[in-house]
Each structure stands twice: as structure tokens, then as C-alpha cells.
């Protein structure tokens, strides 16, 4: 018997492995399996902009994530849900041709009808997963992402300042391997930074930039460039670049330049939105301001919209950029809509709508602006099934309450967004119930251990540091007796916090926090309160208070203060915290950083008044 044990076991094992390989999910099977029934919509009597032209009145049937039928003579199947209304207009899901899609950018963009993002620099981790994600037709709450991955720059150059590891180049010989690595890391195209002849920040030299363009073309990838001057744009076009992802705003395009651009077929993604922000330009005369005051804006969107670049950077004049867009467009140079979100002054999703308004003011017609955000980028980036609404296209579409051919700002008057054939929930997720808070004590540290310190219901004290974000800082907390009051006093306890802030995360921090940080997150409405006060002493230096809100994922609202070796009472006005959302307060942290070093402080009587 024993001599048959091995052949039988081996046979069974091989058989089982075979069955396993053929039953594991593949991207295609997921598509059909998870496609829930009943996601069929009949859009009745709508005006259609299909990506290139207009159909005054038609019906559209959306089925299984795709456009199944279009026509005035098609019938509504019984299971299809009816969408109809007065003067509805349907346009393809919008394509933003210049983004940096991290954090909540993809979900925020989708709620504003932007269904495809062309990322122009970000971390390469996760690109493979995104590639799989964007091929599916599943219900999703994220915009599909195409990406350059990282960018071609030099050590210390533009792109290296954001805390993302960037594989830099030194000389032309590096280009081939560098492009190969991008391809292996699932980049869809190549972006390089070419900003020579200035002394703010180092840049690729022309020879290396040319080598990157050539290697990209050799490996069948498009090469795009970040430029900021007409001269640099000219050199890149001469070097064979496929597209320039900003409009230069230093000088008006010369006749020769326009002729060169036209002759080579290069396209521009002007990103007027971000140029306006750098220029601190008053865009109110161009914008309907509808999307900027939209109730659907998340905290992140409001935060980046209200942010600014701060110091003015020379050479960015919005009116020059708009003139250039107009000139180039007039001579037939392709202009693609891109917003460069979420740079300061822009916000995911809504800034593409305002970009369209800016493009129209620069000289595009309304329909040309729509084409610039739909079929044109789809053509240049070979995005099959996107940017056009035809039978068999992906059912990514935006239903508008108004006719955007008549008024471009109508793209902001959104009736609903459909992605992969599913209606998108545009309202922001509700957070747990909030109770209105009157003046309160967050911690006096009289009793027990940190985790059980008395605080608000659902709140607790603990140490906090950036190790939760893969940083390297550390912090410890312990209850201590105050040395300046008698032990018998009812105010004898305090919280001692010590640790070390270490580099290793873009915004290192370490300290103590109070609040609710694990789901279900408890939050309070503190809009009736004015100040945060606490007693503190410790190693002299600058410290910060960060406020938390469950709907905020980026850098939290932060305010600095300084500590001395003697007890003092710090009082901070809550309204001074930038982008605070007082209706949804879920905690705060008192921390050292971002400058590295050891710290210690003792904290007591933390109150909101």
C-alpha cells in the first residue's frame, strides 16, 4: 500500500493546484461576478454632449457598467431605473489631465464628476493596484487613475521637496534605465521637470532631459514636461516632447513659438487654476464661484482651496498665461484641461470645473472647453472607452441640470454622477452623532493612568507620534505630581510627556493627545466655544496644538505656541486654527516637531472655554 501513497498524494496535490489556479479570481471574473443586478439606468429625453458633438434630444440606456444603447427610438427596459428631468444634459465623465492624486483627492474628484485622473507625480507604490482597479466596472467611490509615477528631476530639484522618495537622474546615460524602472513600476507615461536658467532650485540639464524624452519614446511611453518659461517650452518642443503640462506665464508666446508648437503637434495642459493661485490673481471676475461654495466640498477640498502658496513667485502672470492659451488655441495647438489639484488654491474635482471657465475666458468656446476635458485627453492618452459617450463606452458620465453648451459654468450644476454604471453618492459621509459642548475640562490628571484619565465621554488621553504613519518619532506619557502645589491640593496631578522627534516622515510629531481616534469616532460640536487653555512647562521651545476631526484626513489644523521652564497658562483662540471644523471636533494633540530633537513637557488643566 505504502508504495502508492506518494503517487496518489502527488497526483491529488497537482490536481488541487490546477483547480485552485483556475478558480482564483481574475480581473475579468471580478467584473462580472460583483456586478450587482439592477444597476441599469434609462436616461430619458436628455441633451447629450458625447465628447465631440451635441445631440439635442435622445435616450441613453446604461447597463452593466457600459453605455448599452443611445437613441431617440430605444425603449426603457422594465428593470431599468428612470432618470429624467427638465432640460437635463449628459456629458462624459470629466478627465483631469494634471493632478496629484493622493489622500482623499480621488474620492473628492469623483463626487464632482471627474471620473479619470492623469496624475503628474506621486508615489509609485500602489500604481499596479490602481491599474487593476481602473480596468474594473465595479461600483467604486474613487476616480480612476493613470499616472506618471514619480518624475524625472535631479537631486534637490523640483519634486524632491514633498517627502516622497524620488529616483533622481544625474546624466543622460541614466535615462534609459530610469525610464525602464518607471515602466516596471507601472507608470503610464513619463513626466520630467525642466526649469533651467534660474537659481531657486536645481533642474535637469537639456542633454539629460533630451535623453529622458528619447528613452521614453524608445520604450513607447509619452514624455511630458513641467516648464515655466517660454524658452524652456521651446527647448522641450524642439527636443520632441509630447506635451507640456503647464502654460508658461513669463512672456507672451512669439509668432515663431506658435508656429513651432503647431508644426510639432505638441499639446498643452495649461493648469490656469494653479497659475492663478501662484499669481494671487483675482479670478472672481472669471468664475461663477458656484463650485467653490459647494455644500459637497470636503474638509480637504475646503482646506486646499483656502490655502495659498504664500510668498509670490516671479514669472507667473495669469493674464499672460491666458493670452498664450488663447493664441495657441487659435492656431490649432491642442489645449487639454488640467487643474494641478490639490495644490494650494485648488481643490480636487471642483477646480477642473473652474479650469473650464478659465479656458473659456482664455478663448476656447464652451464646447471646445468640454472637449478639452473629455475626448481630447482621451485621444492623446489613449484612454479607450473614456471621454466619449458611445455604445460600448464605459458608463462614466455626469448629468447636469443645465445646458453647459450655453453656459460653461453649468458643469457645476450637477444633477448626478455615474461611474462604472453606478450612481455616486455625492453627499459627504455623516460622522457619528455629535453633541454640542459647553465649556469643559479635557484633563486635570488628578487620578489614575493616562488611558483612564477623566475626560469627555468617549475621549481618552494617550501618547501620540508619527510612528503610526511609519515615522520614527517616539513619545511617552505618565502622570506626575506637580512640584509647585501641595500634594493635598486637589490640583496636584499633571501629565508628563517626553520623547524625541526624529526625521523619517514628512511632518514628524510626538507628544500627547486626547480624543477619540478609533472607530466609532466620537465627536463634539465646539462651535460655541472660544478658547483652548492649558498649563504647561517644560523644555523651552516651540510646540504645536493640532485639532482633529473625523472627516479630515490631511494635515490637521495646527497652531504653534512656545513653552518655558516655568509654569504658564497658554490660551489659544479656536478661530485662529486654519480650516477648523468646530462642528466636528474629535480630539487634539499637543506635540513637538517638526524640527527633530528631544523634548519634554508637563501639562495640566486642559480646558475648552
Amino acid at each position: 500500500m505504502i508504495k502508492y501513497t506518494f503517487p496518489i498524494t502527488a497526483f491529488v496535490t497537482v490536481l488541487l493546484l490546477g483547480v485552485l489556479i483556475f478558480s482564483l479570481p481574475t480581473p475579468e471574473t471580478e467584473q462580472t461576478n460583483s456586478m450587482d443586478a439592477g444597476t441599469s439606468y434609462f436616461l430619458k429625453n436628455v441633451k447629450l454632449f458625447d465628447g465631440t458633438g451635441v445631440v439635442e434630444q435622445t435616450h441613453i440606456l446604461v447597463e452593466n457598467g457600459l453605455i448599452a444603447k443611445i437613441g431617440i427610438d430605444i425603449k426603457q427596459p422594465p428593470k431599468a431605473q428612470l432618470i429624467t428631468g427638465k432640460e437635463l444634459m449628459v456629458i462624459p465623465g470629466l478627465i483631469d489631465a494634471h493632478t496629484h492624486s493622493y489622500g482623499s483627492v480621488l474620492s473628492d474628484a469623483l463626487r464632482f464628476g471627474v471620473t479619470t485622473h492623469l496624475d503628474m507625480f506621486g508615489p509609485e507604490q500602489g500604481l499596479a493596484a490602481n491599474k487593476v482597479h481602473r480596468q474594473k466596472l465595479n461600483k467604486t467611490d474613487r476616480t480612476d487613475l493613470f499616472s506618471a509615477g514619480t518624475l524625472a528631476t535631479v537631486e534637490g530639484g523640483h519634486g524632491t521637496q514633498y517627502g516622497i522618495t524620488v529616483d533622481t537622474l544625474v546624466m543622460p546615460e541614466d535615462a534609459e534605465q530610469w525610464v525602464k524602472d518607471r515602466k516596471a513600476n507601472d507608470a503610464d507615461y513619463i513626466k520630467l521637470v525642466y526649469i533651467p536658467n534660474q537659481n531657486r532650485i536645481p533642474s535637469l540639464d537639456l542633454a539629460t532631459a533630451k535623453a529622458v524624452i528619447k528613452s521614453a519614446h524608445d520604450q513607447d511611453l509619452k514624455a511630458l514636461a513641467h516648464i515655466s518659461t517660454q524658452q524652456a517650452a521651446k527647448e522641450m518642443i524642439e527636443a520632441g516632447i509630447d506635451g507640456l503640462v503647464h502654460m508658461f506665464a513669463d512672456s507672451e508666446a512669439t509668432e515663431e513659438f506658435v508656429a513651432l508648437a503647431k508644426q510639432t503637434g505638441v499639446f498643452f495642459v495649461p493648469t490656469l487654476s494653479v497659475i492663478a493661485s501662484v499669481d494671487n490673481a483675482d479670478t472672481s471676475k472669471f468664475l461663477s464661484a458656484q463650485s467653490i461654495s459647494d455644500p459637497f466640498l470636503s474638509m480637504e477640498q475646503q482646506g486646499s482651496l483656502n490655502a495659498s502658496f504664500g510668498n509670490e513667485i516671479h514669472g507667473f502672470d495669469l493674464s499672460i498665461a491666458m493670452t498664450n492659451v488663447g493664441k495657441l488655441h487659435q492656431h490649432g495647438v491642442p489645449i487639454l484641461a488640467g487643474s494641478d489639484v490639490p495644490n494650494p488654491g485648488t481643490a480636487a474635482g471642483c477646480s477642473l470645473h473652474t479650469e473650464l471657465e478659465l479656458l473659456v475666458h482664455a478663448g476656447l468656446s464652451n464646447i471646445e472647453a468640454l472637449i478639452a476635458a473629455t475626448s481630447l485627453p482621451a485621444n492623446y492618452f489613449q484612454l479607450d472607452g473614456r471621454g466619449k459617450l458611445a455604445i460600448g463606452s464605459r458608463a462614466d458620465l455626469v448629468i447636469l441640470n443645465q445646458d453647459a453648451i450655453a453656459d460653461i459654468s453649468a458643469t457645476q450644476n450637477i444633477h448626478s454622477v455615474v461611474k462604472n454604471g453606478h450612481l455616486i453618492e455625492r453627499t459627504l459621509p455623516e460622522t457619528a452623532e455629535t453633541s454640542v459642548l459647553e465649556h469643559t475640562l479635557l484633563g486635570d490628571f488628578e487620578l489614575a493612568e493616562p488611558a483612564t484619565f477623566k475626560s469627555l465621554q468617549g475621549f481618552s488621553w494617550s501618547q501620540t507620534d508619527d510612528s503610526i504613519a511609519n515615522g520614527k518619532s517616539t513619545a511617552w506619557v505618565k502622570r506626575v505630581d506637580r512640584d509647585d502645589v501641595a500634594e493635598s491640593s486637589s490640583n496636584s496631578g499633571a501629565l508628563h510627556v517626553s520623547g524625541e522627534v526624529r526625521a523619517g516622515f514628512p511632518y514628524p510629531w510626538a507628544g500627547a493627545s486626547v480624543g477619540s481616534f478609533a472607530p466609532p469616532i466620537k465627536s463634539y460640536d465646539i462651535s460655541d466655544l472660544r478658547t483652548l487653555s492649558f498649563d504647561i512647562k517644560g523644555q523651552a521651545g516651540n510646540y504645536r496644538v493640532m485639532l482633529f476631526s473625523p472627516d479630515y484626513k490631511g494635515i490637521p489644523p495646527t497652531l504653534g505656541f512656545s513653552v518655558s521652564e516655568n509654569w504658564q497658562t497658554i490660551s489659544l483662540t479656536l478661530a485662529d486654527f486654519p480650516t477648523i471644523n468646530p462642528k466636528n471636533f474629535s480630539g487634539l494633540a499637543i506635540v513637538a516637531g517638526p524640527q527633530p530633537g528631544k523634548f519634554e513637557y508637563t501639562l495640566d488643566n486642559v480646558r475648552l472655554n
Partner: protein
Amino acid sequence: MNNSFNRTMRSFFLESGAEILKSFRAPEFILPTLLMPVAFYTLFATIVPMGPESAPYLLATYGVFAVMGPAIFGFGISVANERDKGWLALKRVSPATGGSYIAAKVLSTLIFASFSVASIYLVAGFAADVSFTRATWASLLMIHLFSVFPFILIGLSIGFLCNANAAVAVSNILFLSFSALGGLWIPIMVFPPAMQSFAHFLPTYHLSEIALAVSQTSGQGDISYHLLVIGVMTALLALSTALAWSKQRNS
């Protein structure tokens, strides 16, 4: 000639049958090496995932982890044990051939490694939403099963060189340090640069990079470097195993 071939095959089938029966009859040894990888993978890929890409990423690295256990422990400890008890000496004077003794162990290890890897694939595919094309699943499985060989050689060397007690300790040290430092548990990118460079000396690092490249989860570019290193490492291990084999024969 034909007769001697039949004898070898018979010896091999008997050996391998016995090897498999042993594992079923004494499951306390093989079960932990089968269950630990899938338990870890379930924990880090589905219960506390670190990001949307962590399940497919960790699948590539935990697959290497899954085959390493049966190989290092199956060989290191069991060969040392059998040698210590005089079983190997007895075999040498029996009609059984040394080759069939090793081959039986290799194939039964491959079978257990298959189950270990398969259990992780099941969790990945049906609990962690990992989806690859058929070809990718198949080539990933091939890579993972081939990964068993360098570890078998390591296990054999341990078995030939150490006594039973030392083999347990040495196997554990190698198993844990290869896993942790080679980036099987936690993505190598989060290590400090010095540790990342050190990983280049470990077979686990190169095998997981090959698996990552095959699954296209986070390909580090060209895999020919990793294939070359693994080839050289395997050749060196084969050499050292041969030396260890002749050393234990002569001792």
C-alpha cells in the same frame, strides 16, 4: 540495468510514501509550519491591512515565507534527528539508496509547501480581493514552489552539520531572520537603508522581489539581477550541502 532502475524506483516510492505517512501520523510537526504563514497573511492582509495594495504585495512575500517553513524545518530538524538516532547510518547499510532518501524528502516537502502556498492564495483570492490574470497566478505559483529549493539545501546543510538539538535552534534562527530581514513580513521599503542593503545577502529578499515582479505588484525593475543572485546562491548552497553530506558520511 533495468532491474536496478526498478529497484531504485521502488525504493523511492517506499521512501516517499513513508515520508508522507510520517507527516500525517505526526501532524504536530508539520501543522504549525503550514498554519503559521496563512494565519499571518490573514492577519496582515485582511484584518489589519496597511493600505489597498498590501494584500497583493504581501501575497508575493508570504508565499516565499510559506514554502520556507516546510523546507528548512522539514530538512534541518528531521535530517538531524534521523542522523542523530543512527537512522542514516542504518540506511547506508540497507539496500535503500541515498538518492531516494533525499528525493523522497524533497517531493514530500514540495507537496506540503504546495498546501501552504495554496492556503494563502485562497485567503488572498477570496478574502482579500486579490485578483490576477490566470497566467500571473500560475507563474506566481511556479516561483513560489521553486523557492523551496534553496531552502531545502539550507535545511539539508543544517541536518548534516548539526545535532538534533542544535538543528532546532539553528533552523529557527535562520527561519526567523530570513523572514524578517528579507522583507517577507513587512515591506522592505520601510526598513532603514542599511537594513535594505543587508537584505541583498538573503535569498528571501531576492525570491520575494522575483515574486513581486511576477505579480506586478511592486516590480523593482529588472529581475535578471535577482535571478542571477538566486542562481549563484543556490549553486553555492548545493556545493556546501554536498560538502556537508560527505562530511557526515565520513564522520
